[in-house]
Structures are given as structure tokens and as C-alpha cells.
């Protein structure tokens, strides 16, 4: 197997994991695809060192997280500023307000099945404002502690806990709407 074949197999094996991490952090599929491409280019540069390493999934997740956080801080308004402003019309990664995202997701509530309910939750997660979605994803999907998230994002521990709590409250609406009486 040549190096090119090994790298192709490497990309096929980890592309879903990298893309999933990116799309949940960025809340936007197009940006997530760009970020995933950047991650794999970085992996290609170091493929001789990491290609056969058992820690490569962790390395990829760390690099993906860093690429996404750099993207969020570089191309969007400082999310710290947005979290402090905490306006009622906070917009998620797709440019829609959270309420609009829920409304769009729930427009076919009568025809939803379990898989659709999961899609609603996934869309609701992406529709969260950045300052709630990012720490929520880092906590629940990357298994980072509150303190680690605060250190990574450069904000206070209290801010992380508050943003995560608000994000959970917002997602709870989706779950309780799914379970509640219609």
C-alpha cells in the first residue's frame, strides 16, 4: 500500500468523526466542510508521524476543535462579546434565530418519527448561539470539564456554566415539545 493509498484510507476512516465535530461546533455544514479539509491537510503534513499512531483520533479531535475555535474567533464577532450582550435575537450558525430554527424544525411535527426527532434536536443544537453551542458541544461530545472549557475559550468558569445551562434549557424545549401533548 503506497503512502497515497494509506492517506486515502485514513481520510475515509476519520472523515465522519472530523466533520461531525466541526459541524457541531460551527453549526454550519459548509464551514464545517472547510474546517474538515483544513484538518486533513494538517494531518497530511504530519502523516509520517501520526498516520499509524493509536492516538490519532484524539489528535484529530483536538486539531478540529482548535481550527473551529480559530474560525469562530476570526470570522465572526467575538463570541465573548455576543455572550455578554445575550440579545433576544441571538443567531445560530445558519444565521437564523434559535426560535426560527425550532419553528422550521417543528413545522412537520405531526409527521415526525423518532429519527426526525433526532434531526430536530440536531438542528436545534446547530441553531443555538455560538456562545451556548460551543461550550455545550465541548462538554457533551468532547468530554471536557467546565474548567477546561473556560481555559480553552478564555472566559470565566461562571460564564461557561451559565451558557451551558441556557443551552440545555433551550434544547429541553425541543425534547419536551416532542414528548408533550399536542
Amino acid at each position, binding site marked *: 500500500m503506497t503512502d497515497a493509498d494509506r492517506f486515502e484510507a485514513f*481520510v475515509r476512516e476519520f472523515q465522519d468523526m472530523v466533520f461531525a465535530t466541526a459541524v457541531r461546533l460551527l453549526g454550519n455544514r459548509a464551514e464545517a466542510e472547510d474546517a474538515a479539509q483544513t484538518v486533513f491537510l494538517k494531518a497530511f503534513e504530519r502523516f509520517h508521524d501520526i498516520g499509524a499512531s493509536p492516538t490519532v483520533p484524539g489528535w484529530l479531535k483536538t486539531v478540529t476543535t482548535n481550527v473551529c475555535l480559530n474560525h469562530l474567533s476570526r470570522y465572526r464577532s467575538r463570541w465573548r462579546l455576543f455572550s455578554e450582550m445575550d440579545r433576544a435575537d441571538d443567531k445560530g450558525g445558519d444565521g437564523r434565530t434559535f426560535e426560527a430554527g425550532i419553528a422550521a424544525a417543528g413545522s412537520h411535527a405531526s409527521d415526525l418519527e423518532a429519527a426526525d426527532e433526532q434531526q430536530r434536536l440536531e438542528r436545534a443544537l446547530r441553531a443555538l448561539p455560538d456562545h451556548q453551542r460551543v461550550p455545550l458541544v465541548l462538554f*457533551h461530545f468532547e468530554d471536557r470539564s467546565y474548567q477546561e472549557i473556560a481555559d480553552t475559550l478564555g472566559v470565566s468558569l461562571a460564564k461557561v456554566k451559565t451558557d451551558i445551562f441556557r443551552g440545555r434549557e433551550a434544547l429541553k424545549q425541543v425534547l419536551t415539545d416532542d414528548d408533550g401533548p399536542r
Partner: protein
Amino acid sequence: MTMDPADLERLIGDALKALPTPAAPPTLFSRVMAAVEARPAAPWYARPWMAWPRIWQAASASVLLVVVVGLARVWSLTEVVRHTLVRQLMPSPPDWMVQAVDAGTAVVEAARIGWRVIAEPMLIPVTVFLCVMTAACVLFAAALNRVALGGASES
């Protein structure tokens, strides 16, 4: 109804963990491969040092070491010249300056002694050993690639 924060964390955590992993779009793989192929083939010396071939890393590190040692020797040779120039420019230097120069000279002398006693005797043998082992690894890898992998592809 307000939910207990721990229950809320568990509810959301379980729901999120149950979500299927979003699949990468079919375009991602082709984009990555195209980007890799489109990368300019930069010569090895234009890449970061960590990306250099091992033999060139060893060679550049050796050259740097030789340059540092050479500069140290040149510095010691010019010490006499510097002392002479200082005496001509400042026949009666203040005490603090004399003490500072003496302290600096003592530090340099201690480093020089340490180099001569500990490092210098090992320098050449270690350098030779590293070069020999590097060359041996390169030759072995080339031979393995030709004999083992090349033979396998022909069978």
C-alpha cells in the same frame, strides 16, 4: 416546571449522545484529495525544519553545533584583543565595571571548563555515532524497500 440542573444535564447528555454521527458530505473526500494534490511540491529545505528528512535534520544540527563551538573559540581568541582595546579607551575604569567584567569572565571561563571537561570529549564520538546510525537506518530502509516490498509486488 424547573428541572434540577443535574437531571437537566443527564437528560440533555443522554439525548445528545444518542444522536447519530453526522455523515461527512460525499464532496469532502474529493476536496481533501484535490487539495493535497494541488499543494505545491515545495523542496525539502523550504519546509519547516521538523518536516526535513532525518538525515538533513541531523546534519543541520551538527553544523549549528560546530558554528556555536567555533564562535566560542573565536570569542576566547579575541578576548586579549578586547582587553587591550578597553585599556586604551579607558585607562582607569570604575570599580563596578571591573567587577562586572570579572564576573562575566568567570562565568565564561566556567562554561568553557565545563565544555572542555564534559562535552568536548563526547562531541566527536557522539556525532560520529549519530551519523553512522543515521546512514545505517537509511541504507537498511532502502534495502528493505527494494528487497522485501519490491519483491512482494513482483510475486
